[in-house]
């Protein structure tokens, strides 16, 4: 596992807040576009396919009803 899952931020609340604030006042459609651009920008910043793959797997673990995710929880 190359992906860092310990907190990298000295102030995690501020980091979360920054992302949340970015969506203030946006429609869902705009939010989706914003997130999409962010994913690409941050993926490039990471610059490591293996880390990216692990991040995708982690994100998918909590996805509801995705047939491609083994062990996905359904509510």
């Amino acid at each position, binding site marked *: 596992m190359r992906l860092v899952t310990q907190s990298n931020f000295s102030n995690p609340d501020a980091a979360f807040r920054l992302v949340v604030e970015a969506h203030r006042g946006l429609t869902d459609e705009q939010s989706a576009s914003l997130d999409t651009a962010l*994913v690409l920008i941050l993926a490039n910043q990471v610059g490591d396919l293996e880390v990216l793959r692990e991040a995708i797997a982690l994100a998918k673990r909590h996805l509801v009803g995705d047939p491609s995710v083994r062990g996905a929880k359904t509510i």
Partner: protein
Amino acid sequence: MLQQSSYQFSYRRCREQDLPDAAIAHHPVVVVGAGPVGLTLAIDLAQRGQSVVLIDDADRIGEGSRAICFSKRSLELWDRLGVGGRMVEKGVVWSVGRVFHGDSELYQFNLLPEDGHKMPAFVNLQQYYAEAYLVDRVQELPLIDLRWRNKIVGLEQHNDRAILTLETPDGSYRMTATYVVACDGARSTVRGLLGVEFSGQVFEDQFLIADVRMTAEFPTERWFWFDPTFHAGRSALLHRQPDDIWRIDLQLDRDADSVEERRPDNVRPRIERMLGHSNFEFTWISIYKFQCRRIDRFIHNCVIFAGDAAHQVSPFGARGANSGLEDAENLAWKLACVLKGSASQSLLESYHIERSAAADENIRESTRSTDFMAPGTKQQARLRQAVLALAKDTDFAKRMVNGGRLSKPSIYETPLSSPDTDAWNGGPRPGTSMVDAPVVTGDGQAIYLTDAFIRAGGGFGLLEFAKGAALQLPDQVSSIRVGTHAPYSDPRGLLAIRYDATPGSAYLLRPDGYVAARFRRPTPAAIEAAVSRACGHV
């Protein structure tokens, strides 16, 4: 209204057709299909001294508009086969591509930014011209017996031979062959006769191809648009061909009615919007859907598959014909060696290893391009939109924009290569196709390494950067010696740079021009071992 250059050939009854069944003729190689791949393979085999029967069910070429972009590697191969010069002379040479989003340019790329190569990055040439020039070359080679309107309809495999049944205007006849090479295209009859599966991905997206004749001043570059105002929400491609013909490729809706869309009355306004005028005439219109698929094994006993019969890709990247031609050059020398008895049959297995991996790479690249152009879900479309938007001001996103990654020869991970044992800081590693560079002959003629390789005779070649006395080479290896007291010199020093060479360095080139091994301090024993390995004797 639609016209196309076409070349008509004639069927001739051959003597074999009159033989009684008990005396059917036997041939070492029968190549099925005289498309670009079959023609090229037959020529390469004949130049290696191998007689070939080449059959095709048609008697004309030039129906339909297909490939236009032929790669540097294909041109280098055709040059070795004596037709490269003609292709370049007739073709439109290009190396720059531009990618637009809306009406503004996102970026441009240059596929051959350096000089000192004999062949350009690409030429655009209608496939029918390429095929016609290949047929002309075939006709100069008495070892090739080209039979038009001979359609393969039956194929039986026995231990050491195949029995083919051919249908002609005079009825059917049979022949036997030690090897059959199926170059009969995407709808391969041979594949069907053997029941070989051809599986992969079918794309629902439809693309309109229009070839139009007009005089225009656009530069000879590949122009690709995402979401241009003249064709909102879709992609478009513009490419120049010889004879003032332009290839226009427009993405259509998935559910577009292909019969309606193909009608010139419906195509015309689309093209007028794109060009901003109506001074053009159509020479060809068609609508395509794409598939990316391959057969599992390229060799089934004595039947070998090459070109579209073995693999099919989407056209974005010009990987169809170009990769088929690479199949042909990969197979020709191996088959010739095996038939001559200078290599065992196991050499052929490397054809499957090398070219099926290349097919995977081509399928992967062309699938990625097609997926980028036609995103499947709403979020995938959003991702693409984000990449295009970010590409305006960031390098990373520009490099994710995928309007087709153009054909490049694969690097083979192959048992035929001898792994490096010395340290190299550049130069083509084993498994890579040779890199061209200028050289000068003893009498002052400026030529290229690819010429020197051709002059070396088409077998194995040792590119040797001279230091002291010439090496003793095994019989089947010709020398290409470069240096102060050698047959060739490298006055610009480009060859040494491109091969990361120091005096004494040497590269062993396979008969298809791929690097088999390289040495800082070659010895006859090491060269001998590398040649033996490259012939499949591990």
